[in-house]
């Protein structure tokens, strides 16, 4: 499922070796050497393009169902597998449902669910990371060991088993995905929080008598925000792909819910007589991946 990790950056001039990092679709770049990317002075073209693609996708997900208008559920059993026409821009599927309407609803559902899953991974991960950086010592070591152990479990197995606890139930999918994805947030937030907490500004604030809440609000969160924001975007796209993969394999949401992976599975047998049925959700996912790629070509999106 995933692609090679790219934390092997360009060779540093000193000739030392950067530690190799690995990443899988479900664990998501956990051992990445943390980096707080410097804010560029001028956004390069590809970043603008990436943001534009992502924005278009989000727009399609938000407004698509309303714009398309047709229902994704109405069937027409005598007009199945129809090619794209004026009436159905993307043709009909095996039950005569409008493929475009299903795609729009699927985009909405998949992106929405993925965002939720990413958030449900971000919250515990970030909290634990901050706790680890704050407390240090045994707590930190214990949390590190926990995250290492979770990494050792094949991520897919974890998601599979948790999702199977309640087949088709959304909460189980969220739980499974966040169990696999939280480690990345943990690592990143810990890596960002440590230098901040050890730095002079926080020391000064503590000496002046400001409490933990103040430190959290004024020092940690601003430092974490940009990194976490980017990470959230990436985790969301990972979650979309993971959900699609799960739907493809048969775990995940149940028909007749339109979901990208499910649509691809349903369309597979007709790859020859109706290739547009599988091409459309595939194109959507490629669009998502391309947007992510443009935003940061050095990073894994899968």
């Amino acid at each position, binding site marked *: *499922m995933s692609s090679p990790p790219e934390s092997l950056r360009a060779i540093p001039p000193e000739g030392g070796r950067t530690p*190799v990092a690995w990443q*899988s*679709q479900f664990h998501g770049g956990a051992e990445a050497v943390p980096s707080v990317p410097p804010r560029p002075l001028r956004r390069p073209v590809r970043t603008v393009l990436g943001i534009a693609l992502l924005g278009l996708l989000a727009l399609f997900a938000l407004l698509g169902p309303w714009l398309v208008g047709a229902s994704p559920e109405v069937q027409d059993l005598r007009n199945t597998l129809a090619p794209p026409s004026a009436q159905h821009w993307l043709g009909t599927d095996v039950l005569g449902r409008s493929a475009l309407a299903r795609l729009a609803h699927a985009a909405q559902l998949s992106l929405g669910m993925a965002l939720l899953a990413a958030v449900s991974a971000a919250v515990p991960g970030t909290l634990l990371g901050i706790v680890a950086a704050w407390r240090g010592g045994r707590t930190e070591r214990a949390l590190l060991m926990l995250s290492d*152990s979770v990494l050792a479990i094949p991520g897919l197995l974890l998601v599979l088993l948790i999702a199977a606890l309640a087949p088709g139930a959304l909460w189980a999918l969220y739980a499974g995905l966040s169990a696999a994805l939280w480690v990345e947030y943990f690592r990143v937030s810990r890596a960002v929080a440590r230098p901040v907490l050890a730095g002079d500004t926080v020391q000064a604030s503590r000496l002046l008598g400001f409490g933990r809440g103040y430190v959290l609000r004024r020092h940690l969160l601003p430092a974490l925000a940009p990194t976490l924001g980017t990470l959230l975007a990436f985790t969301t796209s990972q979650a979309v792909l993971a959900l699609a993969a799960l739907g493809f394999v048969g775990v995940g949401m149940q028909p007749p819910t339109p979901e990208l992976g499910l649509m691809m599975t349903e369309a597979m047998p007709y790859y020859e007589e109706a290739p547009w049925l599988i091409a459309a959700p595939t194109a959507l996912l490629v669009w998502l991946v391309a947007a*992510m790629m443009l935003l940061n070509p050095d990073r894994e999106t899968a």
Partner: protein
Amino acid sequence: MNPSMSKPWAALVGRRLVQVLAVSLLIGTLCFLMVRALPGDLAMRVAAGRYGYDLVSNAAADAVRAELELDRPGWLALLHWWRDMATFNLGQSLVSQRSVWHEVTHHLGATLRLSAAALAIAFAVGVPLGVWAGLRPKGWVDKASWLMAVVLRALPPFLLSVLLILLVAVQWGFLPAGGDESQASLVLPALTLGLGLAAGLARVTRAAMLEVVVSPFFEFARTKGLSDWQALVRHGLRNAAVPVTAYLGVQALFLVEGALVVETLFAWPGIGHALVHAVFGRDIPVVQGTALCMGVLFVVFNLLVDAACLALDPRHTQKVAK
């Protein structure tokens, strides 16, 4: 091996051994707990797996329930499972009633074959490209391989396989049949996994080559009078091999895990496919055995990679011994 070398080896092996034990215990217990928590009547699921939908009935489920003694209390079953793990007794599949070990090796063999083929493709495609790109940076090969790397790395395997199917099937009108284990049916799944790997491998090789080319020993080899090619082969490759090997090591998990979707799509009878079936069929021993083997395999593979790195680069010994 001289005595000064054995210390890092011992440390390496020792660390990985501890990891194996920890991983096995964790995975084994976790699987046990989770599978027991799964909904649905276990005996009925097993009966459905064994006898199929035409014959499954309440009577069949009752017979299975009696046979499997599923009324034992949970903690007792856990103790039994720990004891079984320690004696390498993985039990019997509830559905097929063959030994789990047999099932796992059968499926794992298929997955390993797929992974080997994918690795071979990755090597054959990625390394030469990376070497070429590293030797001639900014050339068209370099740019093309960058583009290919970016595109292929970004696509997850299941997306890539769908695209390949659409290309191969619609364009050329054939799809090498999946499911059976003939040579031809290995092509598409191996290609799917291998291309993704090849792209990253090409970039890593390129980066390593770049470093080698500017290094003093390479300069020296050229000064000595060796041609580009000879210097490369005699001195460059071994140095470049270390980061490449390390990179491959971290991809081990990707191959085994990522193979799941590919296996399901192409009906390749591998371990990921078997795992999904076992989870659906509540075949607890197979789930536990498969998960254990995957975890252990991951650790063993990492051990091999570490050993390879150690063998390739003796300078590693200081780092490992720490």
